[in-house]
């Protein structure tokens, strides 16, 4: 394995970089969309729960099937991969964002309203800080599952660590399979560490 790394680290690193790009773009877009939805629907619990259920159903669709359905529309390649991955993230993100906000003890919200906070003040001073750990947890799960599913995106020419895995399958090389696995696991751990640090920093700021 080490020998393989010594010779082909460039190739592995390229795949990893592609993977990071894929996951990074997905998460950025997904978080933006989820935040937008949450902002818009935060006060309509019904709509929110409906949306979460809908996305949970989408989430249950195998990625390969979603790729297949989208290819006639958006073709092979990164665009399709990112669209699918963003769809998957929505469920995890929406659920954890809204759980974070809805799980706040209603008496705390009531106390805040009763004290004369505006919606905006309440969001900034109460809801956001109290939902923070749940939000970060959601992002963590989304990142983890995106890193996993993104490997499948190699089937539709989106690059990334999946290419290493499929390459390993093609040439029947355990070394490559292991490298593909190890690198995606390392990526996961890396993202988890970053989010952990972020969470700590935020916690220190808010509390």
């Amino acid at each position: 394995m080490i020998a393989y790394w010594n010779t082909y680290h460039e190739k592995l690193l390229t795949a990893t970089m592609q993977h990071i790009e894929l996951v990074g773009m997905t998460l950025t877009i997904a978080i933006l969309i989820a935040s937008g939805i949450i902002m818009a629907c935060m006060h309509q619990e019904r709509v929110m729960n409906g949306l979460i259920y809908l996305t949970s159903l989408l989430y249950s669709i195998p990625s390969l099937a979603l790729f297949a359905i989208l290819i006639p529309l958006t073709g092979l390649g990164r665009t399709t991969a990112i669209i699918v991955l963003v769809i998957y993230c929505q469920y995890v993100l929406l659920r954890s964002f809204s759980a974070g906000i809805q799980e706040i003890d209603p008496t705390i919200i009531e106390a805040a309203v009763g004290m004369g906070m505006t919606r905006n003040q309440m969001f900034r001073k109460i809801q956001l800080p109290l939902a923070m750990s749940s939000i970060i947890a959601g992002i963590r799960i989304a990142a983890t599952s995106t890193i996993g599913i993104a490997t499948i995106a190699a089937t539709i020419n989106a690059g990334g660590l999946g290419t290493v895995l499929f390459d390993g399958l093609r040439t029947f090389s355990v070394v490559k399979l292991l490298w593909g696995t190890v690198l995606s696991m390392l990526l996961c751990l890396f993202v988890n560490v970053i989010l952990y640090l972020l969470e700590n920093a935020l916690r220190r700021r808010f509390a």
Partner: protein
Amino acid sequence: MLVNDILQYFQENFSQYLIYVYQHLGLSIQAIGISCLIAIPLGYISHKHRKLSQMITLSSQALRIIPSLAVLFLLISFIGVGRAPALIALVLLGIPPILVNTTVGFLEVPAVMIETGKGLGMTDWELLKRVKIPMAFPFVMTGVKLALVEIISSATLATYIGAGGLGTLIFTGLGLNRMDLLLIGGVSVAMIAFTTSIFLDYIIKRSIN
């Protein structure tokens, strides 16, 4: 054009299509069955032993960061190709969610309920049957649902290693750039995942009310 292709496919290959559906469902159901048989008793045992339950949570978290694709592929190197390794891989993927949820389900049975059951004079077995199992059921089912979704999903990939199923249509579609096959495969798998999901949600809801 595309509609015609799809209709034509069904006219010519309907029995083949049914075989794919049958293979996909068969593999998934078998995998979920075995997963349940292993994970539910294990989950029950682990809720009684703190150490064990911590270990299980930890290792299933570790497993979660391995892409399921990698699990599937790595397994061939150790047990070869075909239906058996596919089944093993799917069971491996199905176990963690059931295990974790079963453990949580039994742990979440409120202490008051257990105490009340005991206070009413239930034996351990009666307590399990009348209180713990019914109260943990929704959690267990949630685990089963997550596992099944994962399994149906990965069963699509299992086509790569010779397990058949609807993934075949998708791969062939990808290989030949045939939109009709892609759509038939993709939509069929989506529908199966969808209905299973809705069906299990219904069971979970009903068991709560």
